């Protein structure tokens, strides 16, 4: 304490240039230990990915291949859309992705489970963004070929924000990434603030109706429900599970949120929730509290997960929004 006071007094006495030097001496080492990204004189970047591997690129990547829809969404949100040269056939957002595909600027490299390694390599990417759960084999093959492959594996909202930050670092768009992450965090906080004092509603989330599948602890949907001021009636299950409709009737949800995909059965789950006789006596059905949520928004680990959170919060607590 005494020492700090002394330095402060001393600092007042020395001139401004000396003050600056002193400040930078304190701050620079702090910065370098905090930041995962290290940029040396040649512009090379090294960032640790979600598999704990240090991934290096020689310069800011100019040709990026994305192996999951969420990573594609992140790249476009960071304004790197013009650097994306390859994506999966499931990458459908933002709409420009499809336009760029038609214009031949983005090449489809396959699905996320089975991307075509030859196609990826023929694009000469200087960075491949993969997702752990979906492209494990592709990652080890690309590693062997010496292609810089950065793997994301977010498990919750905090992880998603962190993965956006690290993608920002490895692509040299740190400023954009931190702006985006700040925005996301403040929107999440706003939802928490509005719903924290409200009663916890019992919520059922339906992934699919035939057979009935729901999301348990560990799924993004479970966290969204909780953060939106609800309680997932199947929080005791882990990840995605097939459940007995009778268990739904017994746990009596007050709100039902049904997932809609892009496929033919898009409103199948919603129709089921609205018509299944075995749900007649649930509060959600009696009060007409059955909603439909677009699956892509609430299950993709990208920037739109916050849109998903706001949507779910509006379903659960319409009075607060």
């Amino acid at each position: 304490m005494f020492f700090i006071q002394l330095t402060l007094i001393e600092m007042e006495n020395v001139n401004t240039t000396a003050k600056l030097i002193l400040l930078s001496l304190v701050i620079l080492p702090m910065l370098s230990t905090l930041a995962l990204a290290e940029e040396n004189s040649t512009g090379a970047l090294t960032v640790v990915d979600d598999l704990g591997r240090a991934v290096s690129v020689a310069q800011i990547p100019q040709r990026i291949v994305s192996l999951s829809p969420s990573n594609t969404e992140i790249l476009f949100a960071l304004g790197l859309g013009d650097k994306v040269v390859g994506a999966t056939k499931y990458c459908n957002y933002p709409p420009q992705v499809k336009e760029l595909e038609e214009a031949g600027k983005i090449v489809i490299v396959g699905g996320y489970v089975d991307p075509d390694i030859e196609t990826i390599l023929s694009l000469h990417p200087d960075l491949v963004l993969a997702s752990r759960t979906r492209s494990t084999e592709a990652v080890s093959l690309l590693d062997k070929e010496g292609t810089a492959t950065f793997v994301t594996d977010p498990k919750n909202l905090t992880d998603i924000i962190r993965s956006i930050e690290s993608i920002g670092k490895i692509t040299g768009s740190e400023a954009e990434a931190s702006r985006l992450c700040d925005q996301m965090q403040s929107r999440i906080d706003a939802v928490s603030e509005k719903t924290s004092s409200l009663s916890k509603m019992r919520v059922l989330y339906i992934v699919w109706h035939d057979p009935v599948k729901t999301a348990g602890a560990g799924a993004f949907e479970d966290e969204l429900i909780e953060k939106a001021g609800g309680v997932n009636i199947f929080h005791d299950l882990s990840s995605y599970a097939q459940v007995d409709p009778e268990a739904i009737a017994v746990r009596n949800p007050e709100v039902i949120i049904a997932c809609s995909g892009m496929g033919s059965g898009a409103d199948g789950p919603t129709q089921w929730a609205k018509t299944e006789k075995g749900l007649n006596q649930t509060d959600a059905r009696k009060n007409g509290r059955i909603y439909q949520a677009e699956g892509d928004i609430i299950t993709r680990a990208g920037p739109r997960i916050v849109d998903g959170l706001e949507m779910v919060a509006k379903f659960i607590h319409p009075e607060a929004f």
Partner: protein
Amino acid sequence: MAACKRIDLLEQYRQAARRKMLFFLVLTMVIALLAGAAAILGEANLGISDVSCCILARFFPGHYHTTAFTDMIVWDLRLHRILMGIVAGAGLGVSGAVMQGILKNPLASPFTLGISSAASFGAALAIILGAGIAAGSWMVIGNAFAFALLSALAVYLLAKYKGISSETMILAGIAIMYLFSAMTSFLQYAGHSDQVHEVVFWMMGSLGRSSWDRVAMLLAIFVICIPYLISKSWDLNSLAAGDETAQSLGVNVEKTRVIFMMLSSLITASIICFTGTIGFIDLVAPHIARMVIGGDHRFLLPGSALAGALLLLGADTLSRIILAPAILPVGIMTSFLGVPFFVYLFLQRRRTFW
């Protein structure tokens, strides 16, 4: 001496008959008990009196009283599912026994004859391309049904060129099966991930799709088909002795084979369009029955029906309660339950059962 032998034979026959009756009686009782247990077991903590009052309340509304919640659990969620398990299991057992009988092959089943894979293709066509013979929610069901029958017809036409022997029918069936599975894989390759999931779920099979209407529809088909099949079971017996023997006994071999094939396909198609493909029961239920009561089709057909009903109802009940509130796909349970029982019977019997 001769009289003594006569008595022995009669005694043996009576013993065999008693054995068959015992098998029927025990299986019927076990199914009834299991159905009762399945009506009581579940997430909702209902007691025997709650459930029985609730069931009786529908028949005697003045005398018995129940709550809306109990009524929903018992009538809208449990009972039709239990009946579906019994009816579908019985149907699969019978059609498996008939196919094994007409083709004289222990591996014959709706699966090996391409019927299941054709139904899956029909469902995939409706799910991924939205193309089907019926509209709306009936599209998947209608397609599965139509394609299952179509594959049976294709097997028949293919076999007709080479003469309808059991070998040609099985070969034609296997060819059809591979064709339809390849086409399903192609559709899945072309489809969106959501649609692919939907096809996979459909193919897994589940009694979760049951409803009172569907149980009634299945019952209507079975009431017509199964008594006819059982009444013609002498023809199946003579086919088992060989085509020539059957012919010399006055059986029109080709016609019989085609009629049996079509009826068992109709039964299978009507089941799997509502449940998805539930494997194993159609193959193993007839074997279980055959190992206990022998190969006489007059008894084997009803025996296979009972064994199939018991297997499917038991598997579905276990799959509901074992990991509650989560449910295991019923196909996994049928194999877990059926295989050990099958192996036990298989090892118990010294002589060959087929």
